[in-house]
């Protein structure tokens, strides 16, 4: 049995066994996903946000379509993770609006926000697994918190999700016993436990060995298609992201500088985007951090104090 068919059959089983409890939202979500495939899941308009003195977003405009794998890319420190937190309502924008599924995130009550979050999955960079719970209990956590399903049913659901990420055999391990890649897959299984409409991935590929990386890349794409999700990936790993993204938005200097399919971005007119996509060492972003003095001058000048740094 191929992995793909496992996920498909899992979906069928999920659908039949949970009809009792999850029926209404589930059919609603299927209808939403497939009927209005054209409309936007997330709409960001004129987003401004600064952290302390630093202006991170200066008028971001971004629309994310349903059913696609959307990547938001940019160099480190441009606030990609912050953007996910803004979408998830963990931070409030200084100006501008974010709509998710037509709801104005910053304007929601706590209750409304939590209701919305049940339909969002988020994969944190660290995985954020609960270290005091086993793999099984981690995946079961959202189910136990949000549903009154009987334990046997929870067990079935958890095993399905773990099977989908290929870690059914690891269910009794503790998070400390997992490799980084496995931890991320468990976190992914947990993120999709409540059958969300969208999953957000925060730097899913950093610090992974090539094999785990390949597994994750493949998994994100397959889950997206098999479960009818919409995925948002935040990353600076160009090659891996480009392999699976339907659309890439490049974030630079607080704005989206370019959007398009991976192919189009590789051939971008903008020198900066080309430097980023191809990973060139020099270009519009200079190799040298700007210094006050020239190199020769700097070497010749006297230190202001003869005392050392200590």
């Amino acid at each position, binding site marked *: 049995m191929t992995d793909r068919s496992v996920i498909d059959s899992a979906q069928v089983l999920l659908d039949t066994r949970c009809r009792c409890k999850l029926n209404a939202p589930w059919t609603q979500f299927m209808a939403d996903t497939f009927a209005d495939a054209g409309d936007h899941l997330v709409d960001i308009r004129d987003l401004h946000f600064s952290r302390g003195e630093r202006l991170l977003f200066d008028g971001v405009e971004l629309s994310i379509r349903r059913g696609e794998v959307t990547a938001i890319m940019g160099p480190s420190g441009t606030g990609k993770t912050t953007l996910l937190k803004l979408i998830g309502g963990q931070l409030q924008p200084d100006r501008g609006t974010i709509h998710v599924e037509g709801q104005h995130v910053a304007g929601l009550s706590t209750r409304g926000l939590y209701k919305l979050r049940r339909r969002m999955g988020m994969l944190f960079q660290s995985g954020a697994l*609960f270290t005091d719970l086993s793999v099984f209990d981690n995946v079961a956590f959202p189910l136990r918190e949000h549903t009154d399903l009987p334990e046997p049913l929870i067990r079935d659901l958890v095993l399905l999700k773990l099977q989908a990420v290929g870690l059914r055999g690891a269910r009794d391990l503790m998070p400390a016993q997992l490799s980084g890649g496995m931890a991320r897959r468990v976190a992914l299984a947990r993120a999709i436990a409540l059958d969300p409409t969208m999953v957000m991935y925060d730097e899913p590929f950093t610090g992974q060995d090539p094999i785990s990386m390949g597994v994750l890349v493949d998994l994100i794409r397959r889950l997206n298609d098999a479960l009818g999700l919409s995925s948002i990936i935040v990353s600076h790993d160009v090659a891996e992201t480009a392999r699976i993204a339907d659309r890439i938005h490049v974030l630079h200097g607080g704005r989206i500088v370019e959007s398009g399919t991976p192919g189009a971005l590789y051939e971008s007119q903008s020198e900066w985007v080309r430097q980023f996509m191809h990973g060139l060492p020099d270009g519009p972003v200079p190799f040298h951090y700007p210094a006050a003095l020239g190199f020769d001058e700097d070497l010749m000048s006297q230190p202001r104090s003869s005392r050392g740094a200590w």
Partner: protein
Amino acid sequence: MVNGFQRLGARALAIAERFGRAFLFLLRALAGMPALVLRPGLVVQQLYSVGVLSLVIIVVSGVFVGMVLGLQGYTTLLNFGAEQSLGVLVALSIVRELGPVVTALLFAGRAGSALAAEIGLMKSTEQLSGMEMMAVDPMNRVIAPRLLAGFLAMPLLAAIFSFLAILGSYVIGVGLLGVDAGAFWGQMQDAVEFREDILNGVIKSVVFGFVASWIAVFEGYDAEPTSEGVSRATTRTVVYTALAVLGLDFVLTAVMFG
């Protein structure tokens, strides 16, 4: 000079702000408590890590503090020929002061620091954030049960400490030094009043438990999400709890026995 005032002002404002945050945090955590009635399992789990795991240190310290008090009290009382009153001396000092205070200090070292470190690490590894994104409020799921377990555990720990300390001094005083067992218990029972002494001691330990758990969970939750931040939060928990307990003890003693 002006700079000095400015620094002082800035510091005072920062402290006031922190107090405000701690207070709001407490209100949010208390708001999460009623829901725990439906999930006693969460509290039981925390009672285990806060209460049961502190038992060893409480039992051992209680017995030894009692034995030391027995020895010291006996030699001092002997000077006045009042060594038969050892029971009174030991019982009053333990029930009124040492029981609640020493238990609170040990609690801060054993359970408070562990609570702060655990919550701080959950924050720095994004577990709290992750919980929020799973639409689970960490205030209800993580903070409230720990706070409640702290409130409940402290009076029990203090009672165990006090009782064992009195037993410890009994062993030394009666078993080793030859105080009459009848005089030991009899004079103690004459002098110790249930409402004045025991109940006030229990009230003290309830207050200390409240403050110690509050400080621990707040410091953990408020920790900077770095390893340095977590270690600072742990240290602060112990230091602030100790200061708060000793200060409050003075105030409470003045009100209760003054």
